[in-house]
C-alpha cells in the first residue's frame, strides 16, 4: 500500500517533524512530499499520483486563517472538495483523497490523521484498475484549459463577486463531468473509429441522450465530425489532427 502526504513548509511539515521528535509511531507506508504551501498542490499532482497506483493522497496545510500565505490552504480545500465530488460520480472512491489541517505544534495530530487515513485505505482496499483508468481520464481533463479555467475562476466568483458557492460548485462539477464524458468519448472513438451515440452509450454506460448532446458540442468545436448515416444511425469520428 502507498500513501502520499503533501505537507506545507510552514505548518504540517514541522508538524510531521514534531511527530518524529515525540517518537509517535505512524504507518510506514506514509511518504511525505514537501511543498511550500498546500495551495501549490495542483490537482494534476494528486491525479498523477492516483493514476500511478498510489492508494491514498492526503493534502495537509495550516489551519484555516493560519496559512503562511494567507489563503493558499483554502484554495487547496476548494480543489480537493471538488475532486472528491467528481470522484463520487466517476467510480473512484472519494475517500482516497482528503485534506487535513495540521499546525506546527500538532505532532500528535499528524500521527493520528495518518493512522486514521491508513485505516480508511485498509477498509476500502487497494486502488483498482477501474479507478486508475478513471484517474487517468480526469487527469487528462485537468490538463485541458476548460476545466482548469472554471476551477481557477472559483475564487474570483465566490469570494470577490459573491456568487453562491453551491451554485458555483454545481457549475464546476457539471463542467468537469462533461469534460470527463467527452474524454471518454474520444478514447472510444480513437479505439474503434466511427461510432453512434447509442453505441457509445453502451460502451461508456451513460445515457445516449447525454452522449449525443456532447457529441454535438464536440462537433461544434471541431474535435469530431459526423460521417453520416451508417447502418441506420448517425456516426461520429475524430477530426483529423485532433
Amino acid at each position, binding site marked *: 500500500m502507498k500513501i502520499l502526504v503533501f505537507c506545507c513548509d510552514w505548518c504540517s511539515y514541522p508538524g510531521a*517533524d514534531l511527530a*518524529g521528535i515525540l517518537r*509517535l*509511531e505512524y504507518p*510506514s507506508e506514509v511518504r511525505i512530499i514537501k511543498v511550500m*504551501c498546500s495551495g501549490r*498542490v495542483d490537482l494534476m499532482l494528486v491525479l498523477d499520483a492516483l493514476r500511478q497506483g498510489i492508494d491514498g493522497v492526503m493534502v495537509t496545510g495550516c489551519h484555516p486563517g*493560519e496559512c503562511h500565505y494567507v489563503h493558499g490552504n483554502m484554495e487547496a480545500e476548494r480543489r480537493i472538495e471538488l475532486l472528491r465530488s467528481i470522484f463520487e460520480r466517476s467510480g473512484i472512491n472519494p475517500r482516497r483523497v482528503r485534506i487535513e489541517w495540521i499546525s506546527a*505544534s500538532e505532532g500528535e495530530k499528524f500521527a493520528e490523521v495518518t493512522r486514521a487515513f491508513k485505516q480508511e485505505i485498509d477498509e476500502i482496499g487497494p486502488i483498482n484498475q477501474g479507478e486508475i483508468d478513471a484517474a487517468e481520464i480526469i487527469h487528462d481533463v485537468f490538463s485541458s484549459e476548460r476545466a*482548469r479555467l472554471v476551477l481557477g475562476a472559483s475564487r474570483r466568483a465566490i469570494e470577490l463577486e459573491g456568487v453562491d458557492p453551491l451554485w458555483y460548485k454545481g457549475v464546476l462539477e457539471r463542467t468537469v463531468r462533461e469534460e470527463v464524458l467527452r474524454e471518454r468519448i474520444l478514447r472510444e472513438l480513437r479505439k474503434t473509429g466511427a461510432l453512434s451515440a447509442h453505441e457509445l452509450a453502451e460502451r461508456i454506460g451513460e445515457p445516449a441522450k447525454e452522449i449525443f448532446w456532447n457529441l454535438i458540442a464536440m462537433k461544434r468545436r471541431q474535435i469530431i465530425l459526423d460521417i453520416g448515416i451508417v447502418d441506420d444511425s448517425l456516426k461520429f469520428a475524430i477530426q483529423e489532427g485532433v
Partner: protein
Amino acid sequence: MSRDEIKIGVYVCHCGINIEATVDTARVAEFASHLPGVVVARDYKYMCSDPGQELIREDMRELGVNRVVVASCSPRMHEPTYRAVLAETGGNEYCFEMANIREQCSWVHKNREEGTKKAMDLVEGAVARAYLLEPLEPREVDVIPACLVIGGGVSGIYAALGVAEKGFKTYLVEKTPSIGGHMAQLDKTFPTLDCSACILTPKMVDAARHPNIELMTYSEVMDVSGYVGNFNVTIRKKPRYIDIDLCTGCGLCGEACILSGKIPNEFDMKKGKRGAAYVPFPQAVPLKYTIDPENCIFLKKGKCGKSPACQEACPRDAIDFTQREEIVEIEVGSIIIATGYDLFDPSTEPQYGYGLPNVITGLEFERLINASGPTGGKVLLENGEYPKKVVLIQCVGSREIGGRTYCSRFCCMYTAKHAHLIEEKIEGAEVTVLYTDVRAFGKGFEEFYNRVRSEGINYIWRDLYAPIEVTQNGDGLKVKAEGVGPIELDADMVVLATAAVPSRDAKEIGSVLKIPESPDGFFMESHPKLKPIDTASDGIFLAGCCQSPKDIPDSVAQACGAASRAAISLFRGKVPIEVISSQINEEICSGCRMCEEICAYGALSFDEEKGLMTVNEVLCKGCGSCASTCPSGAITMKHYKDAQIFAQIEAVV
C-alpha cells in the same frame, strides 16, 4: 548544466544511533549508488560534523559532484548547514536536497527492515528531485531596524533594554496598564532576599525613559504578518479614558472616584481594593491612571452622579470619556515574546481547600507580606490576628500524572522564602512545609534552603500521589496527607504553592505569530539544547517564563540572550529572502488573469500593453498557488517545478 554533467553525491547519516538503530544506512547508501546520476554514495556517523561536511567538500572537489543529497534529519534542522557547504565549495546551494530519514523514518518506525526500505524510497525521491533541480541565486532585502517585545515583565523589560542599548528602536507592548509583570508583585526574592521592587523599579523606569524604547502599555498585539526583517504588526491600544500626556499620576481621580476602595485590585490578588480610576500599584510605570470600563459607572450607564467625580477632581482635565481604542501599525525586523506565565487556579482541585478562609496561594502571600501591599506587610488571618500555625504545601498542580506533568521550578525556593519570612516576621509562629522533593538547583539555592531549614522550619515529606485534604476544623484548618506515615496537621493558615501555567494569552499569541507550543503549553524553542531562545520562525525569539517556568535570574539571562539574537539581523541590515518565486512563460500565458486574485501579495499584475501577466519577484513569496491555478500551465515555480515534484512522487513510492 546539461544532463550528462549531473553528478550527484548521496550521503546517508547514522545520526549516532538515532537513524542507524532503525535504518541500515550502509544498505541505503549502496542502493543509492545505483540511482541515475549518482556518482558517489556514502554513509557516515555524523554528516553534520566537520569531517562529515568535509566528505561532501572532497567529493565536490575531486569527483566533480554538483548535486548533493543528504539523508539525515529534517531540513529544518540542517538544510542551512549543508547549503553553506555547497556555496563555500563553489557549488550552488539550491542543488541540494535532503531526505528526512530521521523525523520521518527512524524516529517513527520500529522495524529495521521496514525502516531501511522506507529510507531507500525517501532517498530515491530526493535523488530524483535533485537530478532536476536547477541552480538559483540567493536574494536579500533590507531589514527594518526595529524590534517588538511582547510582554513587559522582567523578561520583556530586560529584552527591550538589551535591544534598545544596541541602538535600535524597540516597541515594548504590555497588555496591563503597567509594566513589571509578576516580579512587581513579589516581596523579597530568593535566594538573596533582596527586595523585589527595589531592584525592579529602577529598570522599569529605565525602560520607560530610554530614548529608543516606545512603551505601549494597556495594548495588545492583534496581528503579525511578514517575515524576518520585515514584520508588519497591528497593535490595539485600549482606551484608558485618561489622556496620558496630561495625566501626572497625582491620584486625585482615584481618590475622588465614588467606587474608590470598593473594587478588588487584581494586582493585589484581590486582597486590596481600588477605585474605577486606578493605578495597579503606586510604583506603576507609566504612572498614569486608567479608568476600568467594566466597573466605571459613567462608562456603563452613561451617567455618574451629577457629573463624574473623577473629572471634577482632575486638575489637568485629563479625563476623556470619548476615547476609543486605537489601532496602530508598526514595522519591525525582529520580535521577542516575553508573555510570561499565569498561575494554576487551585479551586479546580477542591482537595486543597482553596476557598476556605485563610487558605491562600503563594502569590497572595507575596502581596500580604509586602510592605506596600494591601495590609501594609502584615500577614493576618481573616479575623485580624496573626497566624500561629502555618502549613505551606508545595507542588500544588505541578508534577501530576497526566495533565501538568512538569515541575514549576520556582515554588520550592519561594516556599522556603515564605517559610523564612513568616518565621522572621511573626514571632512564635510554627511553620511546616509539606514537600515531596526540594529542588534547590540554582546558584545559592542549596545554601538558602539549608539556612531556612536551620531556622527551625519543619519540613515534612509527603507522598505527592497520595490523597491530600485541607478542611475546616472549628475556627482553624486541618491538613491531612500521607508521607512516611499518615500526616495530620492543625493550621490556622495554609499557603499553596500553585503551579505556573502557560499565560492565558499563549494560545492566541502563538497563533498570531505562528509559534508552536510544547506539549506542556509553553512556547517551544527551536532546539531544546542548541537553540533555546529561537523559535521555529526566523526572527522571533523567546524570553522568560513564556518558554517554561523559570526564576528571575534565568528569565533575565534568557531575555539578554533574546535581545542579542534579535539584534543580529538588525545589525546586518539585510536578510536573505525567499528565492523560490513564480515565473510566467509569456508564450503560454493567455492573459486570462485567473492568477491575479489568487496571489495574496499582489505579486502578479496585468501588463495591459502585452496583454499578459507579469510577476514582481520581490513581492512573490513562492507559495505556488498561482501555478496550480493557471489554466494554461503558464506559471512555473522555481525549485518546485511540476517536473521536480512529479519525479519525486514517482520515485518515493
